[in-house]
């Protein structure tokens, strides 16, 4: 079965102050989660623009995760308010174009929520496994 062998590729943009720290804490706590995720460090979730997300999908990412501080906790005060506004629009446009907006996950994970980080990665990975490979935005010639 396809589902059994398919390993989704996940690119995660984690803000340096909360979510990246949360992922670090998951490591320090030796929590275990699937290997599918590749984390890219950004100063703040608001640094991520829609071009980066689309580019990740084009490159064959089956899921993209953007993780930032909880609203109100942003290291830069307002960054994640911008993130949620921009990403809501991107998701609704993706949905409108018939793309799988579920493949873009926006999550607030604080620096001490190692469990939340682990749970998020686990559930996102298993969801993407069920959904199968992303083909709709994928640039086939880019795929390795």
């Amino acid at each position, binding site marked *: 079965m396809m589902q059994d062998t398919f390993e989704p590729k996940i690119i995660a943009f984690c803000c340096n102050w909360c979510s990246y720290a949360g992922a670090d804490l998951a490591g320090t706590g030796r929590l275990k989660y699937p290997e599918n995720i590749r984390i890219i460090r950004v100063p703040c979730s608001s640094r991520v623009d*829609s*071009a980066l997300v689309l*580019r990740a999908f084009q490159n064959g990412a089956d899921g993209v995760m953007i993780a930032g501080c*909880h609203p109100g906790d942003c290291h830069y005060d307002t960054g994640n308010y911008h993130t949620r506004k921009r990403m*809501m629009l991107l998701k609704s446009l993706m949905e*409108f174009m*018939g793309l799988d907006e579920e493949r873009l996950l926006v999550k607030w994970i604080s620096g001490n929520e190692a469990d939340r980080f682990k749970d998020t990665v686990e559930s996102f990975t298993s969801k993407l496994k069920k959904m199968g490979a992303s083909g709709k935005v994928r640039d086939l010639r880019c795929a390795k």
Partner: protein
Amino acid sequence: MCKITEELQQIAAELLKEGKVDLVLGYTKGEQEEQSVPCIVTQPEDASKLIFDEYSEKALSKYLLEESFQDKKVAIVLKGCDQRAFKLMQDESRLGREDVYLIGVECPGMKWGEDLSPFCLHCDYRTPAKEDVDSLLTGADIPEAMQGEPLDHEDSFTDINRLEKMSKEERFEFWKRQLNRCKRCYTCRNACPVCTCRVCVFDRENPDYIDRAKDQMAQHQFYHVIRAFHVSDRCVSCGECARVCPEGIPLHLLNQKLLRELDKFYGEYQAGIDEVPTPLSHANADEPDFFGKEGKA
């Protein structure tokens, strides 16, 4: 000859004669009856070339950025939506108000082939505000369909509703069908009066946003999503992007969809009428959180 055209010619001739402006940027009749094209008049006697009718769709304000218009005093003809575009350019420091003489005209609604543009049906800013322009010409022949209250967004952009009701796969197929026709001629971008970047990201070689994706479909999706984003909150609802598309792709639906979402969650905002900052340039704690515990993510 309609009243506005008559007055327009008169004003243009006067402005040129008195030396108040170096040139007048307006419309003249094209080769076909159902076509009006941009036209520059520099001599008072040529003012009679100028016309204004329901085919004068092209937004002229972006011409002002071109090199040949620099350091010149220009008079420009603006419909309601054009004036919004002008105001936005002004707010975004792309041009100053001082050297431009604005001739506002009442718009009778623009034709998309036989029909009226859905943008015009929805438009409640056909005529520029009097205080925003130097002369205002009114008295257009308003077609019956536009005489009442403007239509709601939902009632004029019915295609969005139709698409929203489809299944995801149907929507995908729809856009695949549409976007596969795209030749990336960039006419939509060039016609858009708010696409005013000095260098468009899609014209940049490094990082090369386009060349990387060799697959047509993926490229088109990329281009149109990004363009819709760049325009979204700044769209002045002129409808030029869709009208000029040689392949007839209804790509205005993308940014109108975004506009609808913005209005729904962050309150109505009309670029070029309401004051800047535009909705995407600010964010605060009180806005809805879609990604919290109970959010749709």
